[in-house]
């Protein structure tokens, strides 16, 4: 039975019936209800971010502001505060994402498609890294970077060069840490893909005398393209959204190396209470890169979370 046949046979079973069935109407009502549930916090945030202080108190939270209550001031303030953090986040997120994908791919190749004794033990150590709670490592890691390998100090000759700035040392520390904690999941994703590659093809190439390196570059790498998309999309959102390492490795939100999530966590805490329009605008600005990536590549992202 082909997939198409399965579809038609299925439509009778999974769907109650066609036409004006009250069950169908109930089903769609439930789906719309869920839609409202999942969108409500985001929609409320969006309309609130566009309101003046007066309109926030006077109008309902989910109602868009009227003409007199509309302002872009919060967005301007939030953008002003966050731009620095967004640049920093991009500076460590992009290289860390790419390195994770490269290391994940090579490690999965060396541990899945090349056969050698004891590889499963090494592989288990890779995979187990996914489950380690960051709390179990942040004290040593923050001590390591601040007391033992302080890259800002160690690389100080570099900071005299044009373009480079001292706080890039901290960004480099963040990048390396993120790579270390991104490799396990990247390896797992690539491994799941590599197990679907036919072993006959690799065996044939090997009998033809192709070396391990040649097989990787000629066969495995071209076949990995879809998985590279998944890993890059998934890791980008993970690293961009991450907070605990930023909080513990960067001294404070006012530090020049502060990431976007770190600045966002402390924004809008004015003495006169919480400035919600500013907070909402900042939250949306910080989320824009991940929302864009997510909407454009939903399938890749879904595959990343499912595995």
């Amino acid at each position, binding site marked *: 039975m082909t997939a198409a046949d*399965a579809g038609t*046979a*299925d*439509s009778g079973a*999974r*769907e109650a019936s066609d036409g004006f069935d009250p069950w169908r109407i109930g089903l769609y009502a439930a*789906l719309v209800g*869920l*839609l409202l549930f*999942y*969108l*409500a*916090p985001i929609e*409320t*945030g969006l309309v609130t971010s566009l309101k003046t202080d007066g309109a926030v108190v006077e109008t309902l*939270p989910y109602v868009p502001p009227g003409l007199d209550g509309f302002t872009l001031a919060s967005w301007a303030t939030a953008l002003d505060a966050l731009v620095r953090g967004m640049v920093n986040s991009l500076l460590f997120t992009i290289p860390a994402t790419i390195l994770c994908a490269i*290391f994940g791919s090579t*490690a999965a*190749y*060396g*541990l899945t498609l*090349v*056969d*050698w*004794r004891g590889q*499963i033990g090494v592989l*288990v*150590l890779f*995979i187990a890294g996914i*489950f380690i*709670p960051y*709390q*179990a*490592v*942040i004290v*040593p890691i923050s001590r*390591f970077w601040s007391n033992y390998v302080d890259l800002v100090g160690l690389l100080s000759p570099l900071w005299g060069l044009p373009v480079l700035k001292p706080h890039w040392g901290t960004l480099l520390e963040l990048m390396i*840490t993120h790579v*270390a904690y991104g*490799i396990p999941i990247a390896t797992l*994703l690539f491994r*799941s893909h590599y197990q679907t590659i036919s072993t006959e093809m690799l065996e044939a190439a090997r009998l033809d005398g192709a*070396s391990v390196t040649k097989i990787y570059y000629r066969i495995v790498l071209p076949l990995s393209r879809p998985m590279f998309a998944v890993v890059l999309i998934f890791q980008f959102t993970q690293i961009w*959204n*991450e*907070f*605990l390492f930023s909080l*513990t490795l960067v001294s404070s939100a006012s530090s020049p190396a502060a990431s976007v*999530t770190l600045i966002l*966590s*402390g924004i809008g805490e004015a003495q006169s209470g919480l400035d*919600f329009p500013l907070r*909402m605008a*900042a939250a949306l600005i910080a989320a824009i890169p*991940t929302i864009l*990536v997510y909407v454009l590549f939903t399938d890749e*992202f*879904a595959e990343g*979370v499912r*595995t």
Partner: protein
Amino acid sequence: MSVLRSLVRSLRRNGHGRDDSDEVATDGGTTVEGEVGSGHTRSTLQRYWTSDFVRSMPYWLIPFAVIGLFVYGAIGWNFVISLTDYTGFAAAEYNDLDFEMYVEALTAPEVIAAGRNTLALLIGFTLVCLVVGLGVAVLLDRKVRFEGTLRTIYLLPMALSFIVTGQFWLWMYNVNNGIVNAFVGLFGLGPYNWVGNPDIVLGAVIFALVWQFSGYCMVVYLAALRGIPNDQFEAARVDGASTWRMYWRVIVPQLKPATVSATVVLMLFALKAFSFLYALFGGYRPTKGADILATLMVRQAFQLQRWAYSSAIAIILFVMTLGVIAPYLYYQYKGDHL
């Protein structure tokens, strides 16, 4: 998680059929070159240097070293720190090691309270998330229009940072102007101080986290539902089973592997949840009823500089993580249905 299952399977194969796998390893394509060598020692050495083990090293050795240092090295170091009395801003002293910090942690009322909250969050969050995710998946599986768009929107919260969603929910739960109080107000209830009242704060946190994670459960369950052959739906209908009974008796039991994987992921998340709570409460200290081990640990370390004490809590948390992961791996290892 499905990949993890296959990993366990290969472990099984390796453990049970050691002879087989050895044969495969030496047969790995290099024997042709290896057998050409004349002397026995030389051929062994040569085989070693041209073996797939050595040749595969450039591919995994660097990432392995990075993980070894930053993951396993860090955990080991964390354990050593937990045996010291390290506090404050000076360097640690490693000459007086004992388990004093564990005794202190396990008898401290704050740790016991946080442990209780952690368990409540773990169980409540996991159960509600699974039920909601399954419900949404079943609805989406019934041949609806715009399924792709709906799925994209239901999963959207999962793409947002906890700091972002924490800000959103702080506004949702606002006492005077929040949408949640406006909603319960329709039924003549409230307003409640969701974030500030220790009695209800954990429920509020669970609700917000379910909002963010149920999309993940939905994706996992939807994939599993799609894997169930259609004739099973058909057969159940021919038998005259009601829709409810059909799902309960025929479909749900087949979702067990998906449920187990999702449960493990959700439980692991509940153990380490920190960022969302930090954003929601605007700092290291959540409202009393929502202080879990993960937030307690970070607060002790980075606000109070009690490094050794917080490392001990971190190790307790790590052991709890193992407590979740070990039964899962054992279940996968034992189960013959893999």
